């Protein structure tokens, strides 16, 4: 459907984030042919579970063994902020909806597993992805003075931030279009997108 499906978001001095744009994502083992959106290097099936954004809410569909807060999921189960998702015997993810006004969610790794290639967290981006100092940000950048927002409009990605933004060598005032492999920098930050 949507041509932008996922990318890595590298944030200088903060971390690397695996961003998925689709409303439905498949979690599983990192095997090329499986069409897995979030490949996790863990004891999982090729296609282990599906997470679906349904309007404002999120739903997880178990294809193989999935537990939410210790309870086994048969079929599907809603995800709420703070849910601990266990895939297979060991892989644990914490589901977060940090911002009350954004449908974007984040999956933090609660076990030592990581995506392949490795990311610090997975972001299920709805319309906006907020990078900023507050705990309500999707990407918490503790030392930043202000917020930078990636957002989607008509299936295109844009970036908004304070002051002048330099996107792929061009200068924009406050906002500008970005692609899946853009480099964006402002006065206090630098981020870089990478196709995966």
């Amino acid at each position, binding site marked *: 459907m949507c041509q932008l499906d996922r990318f890595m978001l590298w944030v200088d001095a903060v971390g690397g984030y695996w961003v998925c744009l689709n409303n439905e994502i498949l979690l599983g083992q990192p095997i090329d042919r499986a069409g897995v959106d979030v490949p996790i290097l863990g004891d999982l099936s090729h296609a282990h579970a599906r997470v679906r954004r349904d309007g404002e809410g999120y739903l997880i569909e178990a294809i193989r063994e999935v537990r939410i807060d210790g309870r086994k999921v048969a079929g599907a189960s809603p995800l709420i902020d703070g849910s601990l998702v266990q895939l297979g015997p060991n892989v644990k993810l914490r589901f977060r909806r940090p911002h*009350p006004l954004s449908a974007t969610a984040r999956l933090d790794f609660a076990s030592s597993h*990581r995506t392949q290639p490795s990311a610090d967290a997975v972001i299920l981006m709805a319309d906006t992805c907020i990078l900023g100092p507050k705990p309500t940000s999707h990407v918490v950048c*503790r030392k930043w003075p202000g917020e930078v927002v990636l957002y989607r409009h008509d299936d295109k990605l844009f970036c908004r931030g304070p002051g002048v933004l330099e996107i792929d060598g061009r200068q924009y005032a406050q906002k500008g279009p970005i692609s899946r492999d853009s480099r964006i920098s402002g006065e206090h930050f630098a981020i870089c997108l990478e196709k995966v």
Partner: protein
Amino acid sequence: MNVPRTQASEPGPAAAQAKRFTYPGGSKPLDGFTIKRGVGHGGFGEVYYATSDAGKEVALKLIRRSLEVELRGIKQCLNLKHQNLLGVFDIKEDDRGDHWVIMEYVAGDCLDEVIARHPDGMPAHEALAWLSGIAAGVGYLHDHGIVHRDLKPGNIFSEEGHVKIGDYGLSKFVSCSRRSGHTESVGTVHYMAPEVANGRYGKEIDVYAMGIVLYEMLTGRLPFEGESVGEVLMKHLTAKPDVSMLEEPFRGVVARALEKDPAKRFSSVEEMLASLPIDRSSGVLPHARVTQAADGANGSNGAAHTWQAAACAAEVRPTADDEPILRELRKALQSVREWCRDSSPGVHVAKVALVALVVVMTASYWLPLAVPALFFYAVYRIIRAIVYPGGSPACPRSTGAAPVAPRDVTRGGVASNGASREEARGRRHYRQPRPYEPPTPALIVKSGRERVADLLGSMLLAAVVSIVMTLAIAAATPALGWQVAPEVFAYILLASIAGSWFVLVPSKFWEGTRGDSLLRRLVMMAMGVTLGVFAWGAMQWLAVDPQDLDRFPEDHYALFRHARGAGQWPLSICLVAFGTLMLIVRWWLQADPLRRLRVSLWPTAYSMIAATLVAMVWHAHGWALVAVAGIMSLSIQVASPWLDPRPRQPKLKA
């Protein structure tokens, strides 16, 4: 192939000072590695996260202008192996003559961040787990004749529960560069033993640094803080650390580790560890707990357990923003409530009825006292609010369930600290601590057009609610045996609608932002003055007899009766009355989408009490102003959008 350096980062110290990284993600300054992102800046250079062509994750440390003698220090450490030391794989030179240290990359927490998450210190067992890991690594270095010299939380990491120390062997750069006069990171100075000033670099300086790190882990702050590097250095040289808040054995251990004379300190890391209740074989962090703590800190926003924790904290701790008189009063009320509480419902009802009876029977005694007391209290609160617009001066931090970053206070991280203090302030609008931060990005999520549409909807709804409420009051007054002319209700209705709109419009623009409370009050006051003009116009147009407004239903409230004489009021009396009403009530909070309940009667009661006081002070508008305030408050709350603060079960399609 190499990607050229970006414009902003031509060689020179400027790039480092601006806290920007020389190489952006995707560049390949060193053959065989692709940089993904910058990680941080040390005193010696930049650190990047990179992957090799085959996909191996590494940390790359860029060392500029490196001298052979400096490189020798790192080369010494190339083949050290210990589970608590960050692995160093190799050192390579790029085409420009810059050296790169290829190191193990750690995805876990940095001790720096963990300390920041525990502003009042971490649990002792956790601190001990870190310390024993640090001690094991440092002990190994000492055993190999190497002094770390730059131990600090920013160099200490945890991965899968194991403590890892980085930057050993590199710290010589710090000393070399300092001598050659380059500006360097000053973070290190907080952990620097006094004898370093004289050029002594024995292993006692690592013991000293460990003492500071232990102190910081246990208390959340540094023993020696200062405005400048010089001040901190001076304290290291002369000041005695305040260890009074530590318990034994920590107090003694920290005090001895921080002795000014290196000879008086522990002679070795092992000796220091032996004085602490540590399982010496460990050095393994309780991983699950650390992760959990991380969860709590990162997402203090709405996880079910965090919400509960916040609610419990609110019960245990009297709300921090309380002003002392109110707090005492609330405590008294609480004790009455406790007394009333009973397992059997019959007794409970009887007790409540008894209390109510006593209150009503004695009303004629305390009511005349209560009204002026309330008035003086209100004046006191206003002055207090003006003096401390943000919150209580006594305990500014304890409101914050969110992570506060006290470390930044001491190290010039002004921005983030300022932000967290602002957040703490922002959360005191209602008595219960809110697990949400006020979301500035509401502005991002909502476009201007949506906002205007929202506003129009709210205004329409507010008008409807005002009409309903006014009709209800109009229907109720005859039942009370109280005759009021119909134009008075028309006046109340118009004033209420206009009043709620005057609140809704600015509140819509302030939605999701934090702002200066005093400034907002003043804006509201300006709105109130405008409202006063409107009300005065409405009064003229409807030919309302001020006598009808100027009266409270019961004549024995002599305070409310006063001789203004017949005839119309001057405009000024409307201006001051409405202006004051809008100034003393923080109306915008009732329109805040993040208020705790959609409609709460407390703000309404508060607004009506404020209106009563205004009517008394200005001898104007009597009961009509109280009615207007009540209607405004309810219609604003009903009409403003509201977000349920608790995480709700998402609605699922069948």
